[in-house]
């Protein structure tokens, strides 16, 4: 960016040209006032948000909020009635093929040709991905998702988790810049969920991919997303940095102890904290600054209270409920 400055000087005006390098974030996805009706049902009424390069962007909303419809509009599976969809600075309506070359996606659940092997399935999708994908790339990708030894096996014998991993392989095969994952952990066991979470973090940290992640697993979003939007009843309600929206300075701590009443008075007196909620006969919830958590533990121990459990409670869940109920 260039700035022209004119300085008045006794000998005349001096023209100073200043070159400023401004690190502006590049918008990878820009959706404005998206709307879509199915008959008389308005699935999406007014959704707008922007995903910047390098973001892991959480896309949240209750069931029926319009998340899947919005994602399908993003991938040209559904034509929106109103609004604009821009990806990589280009209009999706005008540059569909060029845009889709740079996107890898899983929508709801990955479906494959059950009568073909994992390798054949990947070959089929690689052939129309718009990129040059070699047999070696396919073998490496199958190894990457832990299916190297099942490459020749037909997909009909795969478990849900294996299909999900094959879906991830299909998504990454053509090395896309943007990855769209709609409920990627649905139906997975805890180990599968952790695997997918670690994979997303690796994609962000090692390959600087931009990721749009729609999920009901709010704890997952809280752990891995840096920005998010919440939509409700077809409208975007709130958008921003996860840490700013959740006020990361404060945290909600759940404490399980032997004497709740004594605990309450200790916390009030020693830490001067007033937001204490008793959630059961032996459980308290305390809203406290992260830095003061050790002080809280010390105060309870010094008061001879037996602490059975102390854990930070995820705040996104509460924030999400507050937004949705509002």
């Amino acid at each position: 960016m260039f700035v022209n400055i004119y300085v008045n000087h006794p000998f005349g005006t001096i023209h100073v040209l200043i070159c400023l390098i401004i690190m502006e974030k590049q918008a990878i996805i820009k959706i404005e006032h998206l709307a879509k009706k199915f008959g008389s049902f308005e699935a999406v009424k007014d959704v707008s948000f922007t995903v910047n390069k390098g973001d892991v962007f959480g896309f949240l909303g209750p069931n029926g909020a319009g998340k899947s419809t919005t994602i399908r509009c993003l991938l040209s599976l559904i034509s929106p009635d109103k609004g604009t969809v821009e990806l990589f600075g280009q209009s999706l309506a005008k540059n569909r093929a060029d845009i889709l070359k740079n996107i890898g996606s899983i929508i709801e659940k990955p479906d494959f040709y059950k009568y073909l092997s994992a390798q054949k399935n990947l070959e089929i999708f690689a052939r129309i991905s718009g990129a040059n994908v070699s047999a070696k790339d396919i073998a490496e990708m199958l190894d990457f998702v832990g299916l190297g030894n099942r490459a020749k096996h037909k997909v009909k014998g795969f478990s849900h988790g294996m299909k999900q991993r094959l879906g991830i392989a299909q998504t990454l095969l053509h090395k896309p810049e943007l990855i769209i994952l709609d409920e990627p952990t649905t139906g997975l066991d805890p180990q599968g969920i952790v695997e997918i979470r670690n994979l997303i973090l690796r994609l962000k940290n090692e390959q600087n991919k931009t990721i749009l992640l729609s999920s009901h697993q709010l704890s997952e979003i809280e752990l891995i997303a840096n920005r998010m939007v919440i939509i409700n009843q077809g409208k975007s309600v709130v958008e921003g940095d996860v840490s700013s929206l959740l006020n990361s300075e404060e945290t909600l701590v759940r404490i399980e102890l032997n004497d709740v009443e004594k605990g309450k008075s200790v916390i009030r007196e020693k830490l001067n904290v007033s937001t204490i909620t008793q959630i059961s006969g032996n459980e308290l919830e305390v809203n406290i600054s992260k830095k003061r958590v050790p002080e809280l533990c010390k105060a309870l121990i010094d008061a001879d209270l037996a602490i059975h459990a102390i854990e930070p409670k995820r705040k996104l869940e509460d924030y999400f409920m507050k937004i949705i109920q509002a």
Partner: protein
Amino acid sequence: MLLKNTYNEFIKIVAKPRSYLGFGALTLLIAIIIFAMKADGETIVSFITASFEQTLSFNGKLVNGNLIAFIILQMLVVHIPLLVALVTGDLISGEAAMGTVRMLATKPISRTQIVLSKFIAGAIYTLLLTVWLGFLSLFVSHLVFGAGDLIVLNSDGLVILQEADILWRFGLGFCVAFLSLLTVATLSICLSAFAENSVGPIVSTMAIIILFTIIGSLDVTVFDTIKPYLFTTHMASWRSFFEDPVPYDSIIQSIVVLLVHIVVLIGITLYKFNKKDITS
């Protein structure tokens, strides 16, 4: 991209067990017909020629490979549409049922190219089925029964074709039969674009063929105006190559009607698939 996806489509057809059902059914049916004709062919043919024996005397081998091939074609061309629709009716709706249409439509290939590649792959499959029919009916029949002149019973009377004058008629007859089957394939692909499962398009295709065939065979004045435009009216035009002289005008008219059907049906499929919201 069109060629790459056509290759993909062909791989899918080859990998599906149902694709071999047509080839298996044809082989079995032709084997049964050949066995039946070997066992009782002379009686069947003498029953047909009996009414002409007062005015004509037949010398030589009437039950030969050419006659058997003609009978097989006559009998099976009515049933092969089902075998074709079994595969082509599944080409788009099968993807919707499996959910893979979502994966396909998010790739940088246009929906028009998706439909056209499916049509080309379906056409290749139909061609292979026709070639297999031709191979079994002509080659195997000739192996079992040997060659000879062909006697064809038409509405105008009996046509006797010399052995040397037959093979080209079969060749062109199979080409027109292929075009008829391709019309059926295109119809089922078109219906497939409207459905989310493969049973609907297959059953609907057969229902349309049966309905149009009944309308075509009813001697009712009201239907006379539409009969020339029904594709089923022209599906048996391969038979015209076994008339003497060959009515080329009528055959060309049939070819044009079938081609128009194919083009219109592809147009409808493209329009529907391009406008379709993929929600499966």
